[in-house]
């Protein structure tokens, strides 16, 4: 009987801690949104964060997008040869890149680069009591540290993803013409054949949500850092892991809520 009671208590404790962590995260997100009211604090930091989180992430995003486009073109050609006209290579590259690969791959890469960066930076600030100093000086850490990063992520992730889309389609075109002997006319025909502006809209909105999630998770893990350098490392790791998981969950969420049941507009 006592064993059963202990087991039930453990389950209850796990549940409580889970809901507690979830509630703390929601409260944190709500606080970050609330801090946007403090217009005297966060706008001044936003451009700096946009430069660090966004512009400086462009090379790695473009690098990944370039190889993604090349591989997609080759895979499409491998799959289509003999059965499907090769101009569908352009269609597949455009659709796959804009709807899925550019937002998700770029989001995952930025979860590693940006999320870990934010968590480590804020964690170190927490360990060195810089955040306590800010609070002493009547600065709200959420307004001063979190809101600029979240806004920068929200704005710059779509910019990075848009650039990645262009680079991926362009590299797919180069691979198609150079390696697959598909003419530019054929490739562009495939790209244009089923193109809808919704494809880009969907990818950019999705990437904005990824940006918000990555910066929020990184900030949350960084501000909750405990235990010195080890804690900072743990915060950075957990920020990357949670960001990656949430990106995939959000990807499925957008697909279910926005794509499911939607046909290509006529």
């Amino acid at each position, binding site marked *: 009987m006592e064993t059963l009671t202990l087991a039930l208590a453990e389950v209850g404790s796990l549940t409580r801690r889970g809901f507690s962590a979830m509630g703390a995260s929601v409260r944190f997100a709500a606080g970050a949104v609330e801090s946007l009211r403090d217009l005297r604090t966060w706008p001044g930091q936003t451009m700096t964060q*946009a430069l660090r989180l966004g*512009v400086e992430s462009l090379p790695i995003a473009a690098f990944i997008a370039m190889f993604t486009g090349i591989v997609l073109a080759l895979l499409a050609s491998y799959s289509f040869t003999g059965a499907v006209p090769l101009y569908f290579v352009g269609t597949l590259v455009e659709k796959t890149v804009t709807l899925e690969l550019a937002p998700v791959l770029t989001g995952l890469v930025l979860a590693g680069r940006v999320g870990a960066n934010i968590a480590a930076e804020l964690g170190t600030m927490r360990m060195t009591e810089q955040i306590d100093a800010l609070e002493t000086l009547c600065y709200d850490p959420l307004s001063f540290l979190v809101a600029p990063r979240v806004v920068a992520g929200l704005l710059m992730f779509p910019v990075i993803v*848009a650039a990645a889309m*262009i680079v991926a389609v362009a590299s797919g075109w180069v691979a198609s013409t150079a390696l697959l002997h598909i003419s530019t006319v054929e490739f562009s025909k495939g790209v*244009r*054949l089923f*193109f809808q502006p919704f494809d880009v809209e969907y990818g950019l909105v999705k990437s904005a949500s990824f940006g918000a999630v990555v910066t929020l998770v990184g900030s949350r893990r960084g501000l909750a850092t405990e235990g010195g350098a080890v804690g900072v490392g743990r915060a950075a790791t957990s920020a990357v892991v949670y960001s990656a998981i949430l990106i995939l969950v959000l990807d499925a969420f957008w697909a279910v809520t926005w794509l499911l049941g939607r046909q*290509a507009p006529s």
Partner: protein
Amino acid sequence: MKRASDAVVGLVVLVVALATITAITWARQADIGGRRQLVVAHFRDVGNARVGNAVVIRGVVGGRIQAIELAPDGWVNVRMRLDPAVGLPAHPVVLLNESSLFGDWQATVVDRSALPADDALHRAVEDASHDSNALPGTSLPGIGKLTTVAGQIAGDVASVASRVGTAFDDSAARELRSSIKNVADLSATLRSIAQEHASDLDTLSDELRAAMLTLARTATSVEQTAQRLDSATTSDQARQLVDNFDVASIELRRAAVQVHDLSRRLVATEGRIDAVLANGNSVLAKIDRGQGSLGLLVNDPSLYRRADSTLAELRALAAALRANPKKYISVRLF
């Protein structure tokens, strides 16, 4: 430093936004400046045509479908955006049809005189010609419809084959072979009997001729004997008369033997003829009882009607295929 970072971020945002807008404009094939010409076509049904499908003139892509809208009275208006240099035929008609096996459709602009020879197509175009502000148009059947028609044709052929199979199944074929064999046997027997009969008749005729000659000679002898008998009363020719009677009796006996032999052969011939007639009666009895293909054809009117119906359907199918082959076979690739 802060101003510099602002400038860099602003530059990146502007460049990426400009590149994205340019790419979307290119992919959408947007008409910047409105230089392209707009053409509206009138349809009852647009099939699977979609916005963005190609508009083809003489095999060349000259524009895109810009919009598809429902119109009053059961019509559908299709707005097409054509390149500035594209010229329409004198009497343009728009046909919506599949351009590939993958569900792509296109709008093909042709001159009315170049329409396929299909009454239904011409009626549909005439029906759509009432609006002077729009081009008349109609949609051609897609691969799915063609497949359906092909399936119906295959079903008809299968039905015809089934009926033929029902009328001439294995049993009917065996009976037909048996009947043919019977007829062949009957023919051979008749030929053999005819040959034998001709030989017998020849022999009979020869023997009758010989018998007649013998009788004639006998009569002559009898006449001579009578004359001699008449004069025998005055001479010693009685002895010679007796001898002549002996000769005549011998010849009469031989003629009787020959006649007897002839009658025996006639009896044998009659027996063979009876056998032939019996075989014939057997075949006719089978036919009368409805056995065999001939019997079925003679006694079962439904079989005849089925065969006749099958031939009529085949004739109709062949006539339809000759008259309008494109109705049944029209496959276009891309």
